[in-house]
């Protein structure tokens, strides 16, 4: 069961957030499960989440064993608490893709990678009508930004892809 999905960019802003509150209705498999997209209430939670992941990541980078010739980067893959599990993926461009799920499935890295390479790239990067850098001005580059992805193709493709995994 997937609880929520977040995307953060390199300016520490949350640029997309999707939360599922109820499981999909098994009687009507075509109905979109309820939840919120880019809601303002989740702003605070987004900041907490990003702060947590950012600080944990910087610790683990310090703890990484550095072999002199090739630096192997130590990236966080998953964080578990007693109630849920957080799966993360950081791209080379500084984007964070984060899924909060339950304990059923252990590894979502393939899912996150697919979302990045096929859904995000196709609908946001190749799209000339969508900004590539969501911070509108230098002020928004330190976590103050508010612009989010509101691209209907992106949202629909993402829903279709994650729908099957909601339960």
């Amino acid at each position, binding site marked *: 069961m997937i609880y929520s999905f977040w995307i953060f960019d390199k300016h520490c802003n949350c640029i997309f957030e999707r939360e599922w509150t109820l499981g999909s209705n098994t009687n009507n498999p075509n109905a979109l499960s309820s939840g919120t*997209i*880019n809601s303002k209430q989740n702003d605070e939670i987004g900041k907490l989440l990003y702060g947590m992941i950012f600080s944990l990541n910087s610790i683990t980078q310090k703890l990484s064993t550095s072999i002199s010739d090739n630096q192997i980067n130590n990236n966080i893959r998953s964080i578990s608490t007693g109630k849920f599990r957080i799966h993360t993926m950081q791209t080379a461009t500084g984007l964070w893709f984060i899924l909060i799920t339950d304990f059923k499935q252990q590894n979502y890295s393939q899912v996150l990678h697919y979302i990045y390479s096929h859904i995000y790239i*196709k*609908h946001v990067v*190749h*799209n*000339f*009508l*969508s*900004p*590539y*850098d969501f911070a509108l001005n230098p002020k928004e580059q330190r976590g103050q930004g508010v612009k989010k*992805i*509101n*691209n*209907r*193709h*992106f*949202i*629909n*493709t993402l829903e*279709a892809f994650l729908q099957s995994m909601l339960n």
Partner: protein
Amino acid sequence: MPHQQRYNNGSMTNNEAIERQRQYEMFQESLPKVNKILFQMILNEIIPLSVRIENQLTQGNEFQNDTKLDTLGDSSFDKASDLDNITKLKDLSINAKANSETHLGNISSPDDVLIYKLSQSVDENENKYNNILKRIRDIGIKIGTKLVNLLIFTNNINLNFKEMDLLLIMKFICRDVWKHVFGKQIDNLKTNHRGTFYLTDLEYPLLQSFCIETNTIPSQLNEEFILNKESKLVEPFLELPVGIIKGVLLSLGYPLDEVICLATFIDKPKERIKNSFPKGISFHVQITKSFLPQQQKQ
């Protein structure tokens, strides 16, 4: 293979034809390839580039006009050398950041901002908008003419330019030109055999990822409103293939003023719409002068 018979002039036997075809395909395979994604991005980048060029040129003119007004009052200045000095100073700067923002935005604006502002400026400054469209179209024309020259010399036995009439030229555009530039063929070609053609591309590859970004969740907005706005934003992007078609016709003997080419949006059949750009493109090509075959140059 059926398409082999298209342009065949019958002077080769079938075996020779098959052999030549195979050689042609092997040759094509051996050519260095271009990354398709990058190529498409570069083609799309032509549109914001044209906007920026137009901005920079008009800003320069405005700047010069301002200084002309300043020096009008004082006749003791040598006006010519003053203007020369000003243009030289302007040429010196490496970071050509605009001193004053035009209503079409800073030169260093990101692509999407430029495109949004462009569509807003249609009503304000029609002249500039048309200039930009013309610029894009000209680049397309250049691409078209050069491409025809390249394709003539590829030893493709299916192409025989000696006996091409207008219909065959249009078929050539639909199949070969579109295949080389966009990776697919035109879906539909209609003609009235009197010089008017309709080329329909239901999934124009350069536009498939395009989708407008709104400030609120899309499900809350009126869908028709979004579609209209999207179509308006994407209009400049259609000038490129229009230019390519015109360029091909130009190099095969139909001068620019005899060819009318317009692009419009058409609806896709329902099963093709799925999270991609919701409209197809229809190109209306009309040859105004008589459609008698022109003298072909080889």
